[in-house]
């Protein structure tokens, strides 16, 4: 009934817009390929990476944007997803699970870790949760690095000797890729006709599909009972508790679902790269994702999509390729322009926080709000 009062929507234009988006998404890789030929800049691989980061940022957006929990170690779940995929498909471990099954296992394992780390810590509020997640984000890459050659000695007796789970800092390679031999047989094609292993165009479509799954899940969740519970918790946890929203369970759901997005994206990323190292999941990755969510607008799913695409592509194409090309050619031949990257993001973060704290594309509901919420009351002191 509520639609009666709403303005009649321009249905045709609305549908046309979607058709337009679909057409752009489909022809984009071919246009990019042509552009790559013209300019010699890697474009499709960077857009693929950007789309992975969008999927990751959507997961972080659920935690930070919708449920209002500050997570400074989100890359840990990314690492868990990627490394679970690695362990399931790395030939040395003799499991070699199919890609299509493994990615879902990875999402589940990441969600499980989300619950494991979340269950004891989610009763902590604000800053303390941020610290716990930060510590978790530091522990996971360290563990991955150390479990390549694990020896356990107790009172002079070796219980575990040189156990290699993660191959340490050398990383896991090669990793499993999607296998289409079933379809090849189904359509009567030659063996290997659909074996698209390293082609960036193939990965473009694979990642677009992954991102669409994530995006669909995020929009559905946002409008669901759970999504409203998250926003209630974000605005006022005590009030939400009184209204019958169980804060712990709701936050745990946010943590687990956010982690599962990250696990899925991590698995696809691992398969795309074909090799993973602990260095890929450093603290900087957590902060980069946080920057995407905060700059785009916390809690805005479409904002994070657009903002994530812009920021990650800007990072991968402009900062990493075009800028060094310009500078190193003539102006500053010796200078490593890449080192300016974090000056860029750091200052961007500061400027946005001071002048537009709600982000560039905030969700509609917060845009209407006139005043920012009051700061938390202070009761704690410096004691000595």
């Amino acid at each position, binding site marked *: 009934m509520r639609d009666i009062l709403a303005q009649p929507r321009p249905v045709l234009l609305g549908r046309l817009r979607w058709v337009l988006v679909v057409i752009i998404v489909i022809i984009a890789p071919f246009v990019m390929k042509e552009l790559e030929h013209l300019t010699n800049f890697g474009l499709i691989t960077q857009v693929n990476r950007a789309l992975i980061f969008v999927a990751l940022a959507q997961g972080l957006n659920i935690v930070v944007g919708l449920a209002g929990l500050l997570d400074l170690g989100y890359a840990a779940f990314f690492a868990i997803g990627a490394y679970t995929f690695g362990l399931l498909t790395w030939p040395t471990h003799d499991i070699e699970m199919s890609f299509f099954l493994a990615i879902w296992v990875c999402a589940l394992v990441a969600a499980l870790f989300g619950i494991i780390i979340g269950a004891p*810590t989610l009763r902590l509020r604000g*800053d303390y949760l941020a610290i716990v997640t930060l510590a978790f984000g530091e522990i996971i890459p360290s563990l991955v690095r150390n479990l390549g050659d694990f020896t356990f000695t107790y009172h002079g007796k070796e219980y575990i000797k040189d156990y290699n789970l993660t191959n340490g800092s050398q990383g896991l390679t090669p990793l499993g890729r999607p296998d289409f031999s079933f379809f090849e047989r189904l359509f009567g094609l030659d063996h290997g006709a659909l074996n698209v292993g390293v082609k960036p165009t193939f990965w473009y479509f694979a990642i677009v599909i992954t991102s669409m799954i994530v995006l669909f899940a995020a929009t559905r969740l946002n409008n669901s009972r759970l999504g409203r519970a998250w926003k209630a918790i974000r605005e006022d946890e005590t009030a939400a508790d009184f209204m019958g929203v169980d804060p712990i369970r709701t936050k745990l759901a946010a943590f687990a679902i956010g982690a599962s997005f990250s696990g899925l994206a991590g698995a696809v990323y691992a398969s795309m790269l074909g090799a993973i190292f602990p260095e890929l999941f450093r603290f900087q990755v957590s902060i980069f994702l946080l920057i995407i969510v905060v700059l785009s607008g916390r809690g805005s799913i479409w904002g994070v999509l657009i903002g994530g695409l812009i920021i990650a592509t800007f990072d991968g194409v402009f900062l990493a390729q075009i800028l060094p090309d310009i500078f190193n050619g003539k102006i500053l031949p010796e200078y490593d322009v890449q080192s300016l990257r*974090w000056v860029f993001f750091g200052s961007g973060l500061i400027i946005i926080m001071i002048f537009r*704290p709600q982000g560039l594309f905030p969700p509609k509901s917060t845009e209407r709000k006139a005043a920012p919420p009051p700061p*938390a009351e202070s009761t*704690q*002191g410096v004691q*000595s």
Partner: protein
Amino acid sequence: MSIDNQVFLQNVIIGLTVGGYLALIALGYTMVYGIIELINFAHGDLFAFGFFISLTIFAKINPDIPLHGANLYLLLPGVAILTMLLTGSLNLAIDQIAYRPLRKAPRLAPLLTAVGVSFMLEAIYAIWKGPSQVPYPRYFPKEDYINNEKVISFFSKLGLDITTWRIVSFTTKDLFLFSVTIPLVIALTLFIDRTRVGKAMRACAQDREAAMMMGINVNRIIATTFFTGGALAGVAGMVWGLYINSGRFTMGFEAGLMAFTSAVLGGIGNIRGAVLGAFIIGMIKAMSDSYIGSEWTRVVIFGILILMLVFRPSGILGSTQSIEKL
């Protein structure tokens, strides 16, 4: 003394030295947190700034290596004071530019700004001094006390024969580190306990608005806090540079995480807690490096941090008030 005991004693010395410089950094974290409830993420990078700026000052003066005579007793304290002033001013400037406009914003905003500042500073250091390991010349003379005649005869009077302590070393550098860090820690505690400004700081920490109504200039108190915290971190950077003789642009992040863990362990917002936490973390680091393996130290320290936050979020010495608020 058996080899095992000697190793243990040496680890205790290392733990105390690490704890000493961590304490200076942790104090800055805990003071800022106590007053404006901000996890000042960029604080560790001020430690790195102290390292780099004192290195630059030394390079400009270019004294003989190692320092001796007047250089040791006049130049060294002079450089230390200059480093403290510069690092304190930098922290003050960061606060005025980046955090002050966000005093009334939700708490996520200044925290993220601090993360931004931290990354910016690190990138600037990488440009300034290069991304690889930076050597810090051995300005401070190094002499082992264990092999010193006087020390040997002193201990033999106590009935200890230390000539067999081949593994243990306690050098002039260790003594220097203690003689800088411990008096500074005590001075700061007295400053907060006994002076008018310290009293005003405690008042601001308890209730900023009430403090303002009592006529305390809150902005000046916050500025003092940032300056003091920065100065302590700066001198820690310099002392650590003289002690360990090398560093990198990311050293601030590493040290900052450990110092921050110390502050949380002792009870964040609590001055004595930060010092206690720092020495505990220093000990844990030394013991873990030696008995478990240095590659596991991070896991051990952060594991302790998580367990601490889960079971006793107020820290060892913190009050129960802090849980209610967070």
